[in-house]
């Protein structure tokens, strides 16, 4: 069993952590969802809360974003207590919930303007235009969100969370329900955030997502954090490396992405366009993007290939 293996955090805390959680407990009637959760997230870090369905990830995020009250324990976000300084916490955070919290009847731009107004910012229009450009949504900005693809909707959702540059961002299962392309788009966006010094707490049930994005990973299991550390530290918990040669088979995802061309177009459409025909795809609501964006994604979009060195872990861990 992995029970209660903990790794002390190694980050220096000159400024104090962006998120500090201690002894957090929450029950729904008889069901104890959180039974004493402790963790810290350093400023500017990407922290993944990894766990299966029902592990308590969403409950933890809701408490940290002041939507729920904890039964016991303390939580501080950006130095403010979530229970007693909720208004200050709300100034410091933004939440991207499990379901894309966008207004389908409004356009993408109107959604961003709405959030900017509610954050009482000046120049909401300019803020919206900047974010649309940054998230490759400029062409789709005037269109109703109802016509967006899943990936575009999620990107808009995350863009809405960045309005006003809150120092801490919660992403609750940001890629749940997205197709592989949509997921890659979202990963790209999250990686970019890290470069800007924003603290990100994301929850996920996909191991590869935590591995791709986070610099610290905590595993939440049945209401407790059972492991917490960097990817390297987590790997050290497993038996030592043993070199073994494994034939690398393509995953179904790699096959899928190779066949569809990694950008949501099917082959016929691509060939059509290469023939020089029809480029009026922009307005048809399928959420195409410009070529530049597509190039970017291809560079580091797919899953990391399983190499001889990492292949052993999954085998030996069993």
């Amino acid at each position, binding site marked *: 069993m992995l029970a209660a293996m903990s790794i002390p955090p190694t980050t220096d805390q000159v400024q104090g952590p962006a998120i500090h959680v201690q002894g957090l407990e929450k029950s729904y009637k008889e069901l104890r969802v959180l039974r004493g959760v402790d963790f810290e997230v350093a400023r500017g870090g990407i922290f993944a809360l990894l766990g299966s369905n029902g592990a308590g990830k969403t409950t933890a995020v*809701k408490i940290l*974003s*002041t*939507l*729920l*009250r904890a039964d016991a324990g303390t939580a501080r976000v950006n130095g403010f207590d979530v229970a007693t300084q909720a*208004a200050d916490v*709300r*100034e410091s*955070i*933004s*939440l*991207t*919930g*499990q*379901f*894309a*919290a*966008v*207004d*389908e*009847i*409004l356009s993408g731009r*109107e959604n961003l303007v*709405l*959030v900017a*107004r*509610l*954050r*009482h910012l000046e120049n909401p229009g300019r803020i919206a235009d900047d974010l649309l450009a940054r998230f490759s949504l400029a062409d789709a900005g005037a269109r109703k969100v109802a016509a967006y693809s899943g990936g575009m909707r999620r990107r808009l959702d995350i863009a*809405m969370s960045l309005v006003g540059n809150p120092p801490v961002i919660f992403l609750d299962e940001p890629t749940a329900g997205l197709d592989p392309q949509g997921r890659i788009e979202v990963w790209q966006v999250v990686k970019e955030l890290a470069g800007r010094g924003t603290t990100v707490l994301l929850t996920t049930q996909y191991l590869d997502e935590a591995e791709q994005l986070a610099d610290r990973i905590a595993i939440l299991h049945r209401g407790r954090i059972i492991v917490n550390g960097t990817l390297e530290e987590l790997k050290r918990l497993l038996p030592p490396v043993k070199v073994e040669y494994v034939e690398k088979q393509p995953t179904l995802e790699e096959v899928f992405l190779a066949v569809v061309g990694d950008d949501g177009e099917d082959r016929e459409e691509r060939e059509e366009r290469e023939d020089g025909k029809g480029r009026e795809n922009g307005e048809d609501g399928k959420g195409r993007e410009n070529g530049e964006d597509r190039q970017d994604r291809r560079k580091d979009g797919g899953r990391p290939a399983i190499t001889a060195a990492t292949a052993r872990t999954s085998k030996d861990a069993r």
Partner: protein
Amino acid sequence: MNRHFLGDTAVLLGRSLRHIIRSPDTVITTVITPIAMMLMFVYVFGGAIRTGSDSYVNYMLPGILLITIASGISYTAFRLFMDMRSGIFERFQSMPIARSSVLWAHVLTSLVANLISLAVVVGVALLAGFRSGAGVGAWLGVAGILILFTLALTWLAVIPGLTAKSPDGAGAFAYPLMFLPFLSSAFVLTETMPGPVRAFAEHQPVTPIVDTIRDLFTQKPVGTGIWIALAWCVGILVVACVFANISYRRRIS
């Protein structure tokens, strides 16, 4: 009160009004039932109903207006429910806004949407022969009672909007309200009803409200009926508002 309350409410009101402008089908489906009922009663049943009034459409329009409001507030519950379910509600609640403004924006949207629906229904009634010699004061009185009744039913609609489990459930509570005018003086004189039904009809809120609006339209003195009508409206408003706010607080903490 939070210093951003008015500003935030205005921004969120603008958002929901856009919803109404962009999906006018909500206004159309709101008015279609009351208009169909009005035309049925005026052109089919009306000839057989004796009300002592010179024109049946003049007699029954107040009841139709209340049915319009009852029909309209099911969308209030529906819009609130959809916000709760889509996650946008949680986004708003996690933002530095006056939290009650989310609810107030829905309430004011409901008022605007219902006033539009009422204007459409009155327009159709004019085409169907409705006439009133009421002056400005009487029209303002009618508008005031209708606004008060809309607010009372809107707060009532907030409760299923916050607590329902499905969109159908959120809207379904409006059906009994739409039938309440049939058990009142809205379409026939209560004297023609059998004892227990008549007792119910004469002591439920719709009868005094309908009678008061009818008196205002026909320039008759409203008597004490108007106070009973106002007491019902304010009473429902206060009770519904209290329970709606309890449900709301439960949802956001």
